[in-house]
């Protein structure tokens, strides 16, 4: 029987939008962490083809560190456990964007609440991942914190439930999501500069279903400002979405019309936030307002 050191743990197929992959790892506890972290990306069809394999292997001469490869390509070497998973998530995200160009993609967070899609376009550092995490903990359905796919055929936002990536500045705001608390016992300690917060599976944080966007909220973290909402004009909302679109120009006139359509069917606000609980409450209030005016069938559909 092979020793634990050399045993390869092959894991279930995963899918992020149109990107199929799987992970193999020679360290049992890191493989278990990967399983939990990637819970939201589980491919329901166990027999689905796997396009790419990620390998997490012990760094030769390293001290409990790992090398990360996609197929034969070395992505990173000599990484701590959490950082190795961070590299994996980063590459999955990049690859999912590259493989899913049939959809209109936005750099944004997204959630679902009773069939109402909430879009949170924002640059890095705007607080969109933290807000997405807060809303997910408030029982919104999680769609993504980073790469939103808008299906041009159905008009729905699609789930891409990668783990929520939180940077150090957010740790104190959402201490309940500390991987040390979130990861099940027996998966080993977390060591990484970022948190990869799992959603779906048995985590207690649910993945949302496909749904049409009805609410656009553009977050901006400002520690010195009171938390509050400002309505956006159609032009302002359009610009916010267009500027955060990943592949608008390749979709041409159809993409431009789709963005305008999202604006037309959505309530659009800028959210300045310094307090996460207040921000989440404001978004919940907006969802309630939208639910009151959207036809009942539209909210329940999906």
């Amino acid at each position: 029987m092979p020793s634990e050191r050399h045993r390869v743990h092959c894991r279930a197929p995963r899918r992020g939008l149109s990107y199929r992959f799987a992970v193999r790892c020679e360290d049992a506890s890191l493989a278990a962490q990967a399983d939990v972290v990637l819970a939201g990306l589980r491919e329901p069809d166990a027999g689905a083809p796997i396009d790419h394999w990620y390998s997490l292997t012990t760094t030769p001469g390293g001290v409990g560190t790992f090398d990360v490869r996609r197929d034969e390509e070395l992505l990173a070497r000599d990484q701590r456990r959490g950082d190795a998973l961070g590299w994996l998530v980063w590459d999955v995200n990049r690859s999912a964007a590259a493989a899913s160009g049939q959809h209109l993609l936005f750099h944004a967070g997204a959630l679902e609440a009773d069939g109402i899609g909430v879009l949170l376009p924002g640059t890095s550092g705007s607080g969109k991942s933290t807000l997405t995490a807060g809303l997910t903990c408030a029982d919104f359905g999680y769609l993504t914190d980073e790469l939103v796919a808008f299906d041009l055929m159905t008009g729905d936002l699609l789930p891409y439930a990668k783990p929520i990536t939180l940077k150090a500045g957010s740790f104190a705001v959402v201490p309940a999501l500390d991987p040390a608390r979130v990861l099940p016992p027996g998966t080993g300690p977390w060591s990484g500069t970022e948190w990869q917060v799992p959603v779906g599976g048995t985590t207690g944080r649910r993945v949302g279903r496909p749904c049409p966007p009805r609410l656009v909220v553009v977050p901006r973290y400002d520690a010195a400002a009171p938390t509050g909402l400002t309505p956006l004009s159609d032009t302002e909302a359009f610009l916010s979405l267009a500027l955060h679109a990943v592949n608008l120009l390749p979709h041409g006139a159809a993409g431009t019309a789709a963005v305008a359509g999202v604006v037309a069917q959505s309530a659009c606000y800028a959210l300045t936030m310094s307090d996460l609980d207040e921000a989440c409450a404001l978004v919940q209030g907006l969802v309630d307002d939208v639910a009151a005016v959207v036809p009942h069938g539209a909210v329940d559909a999906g």
Partner: protein
Amino acid sequence: MRADAARPVALPARRAGASTVALDDNLAVYDDVGQLLILLNTSAAAVWERCDGVTTVDALVDELAATYPDAAAVMAEDVRQTVDKLRELGLVADAGS
């Protein structure tokens, strides 16, 4: 080429393949050829919409001056600058050249 670029546009015509969406009083123009998305403000949108390849710039100035009499004094300069900018962006060509 350089001489054409310097010559004022006489008969501005919107480029075929450009599509628009209205946003408030503004207009987002997507140019399929240049793969360019431009947001035009109200006054630029008014010029763009009148670039039909038939109306001359002078006639366009007169029409807009009549529509916006408060801005009549600066209309000629504004319209010519806007048409030049639209040509520079490839959104307008001179149907008379």
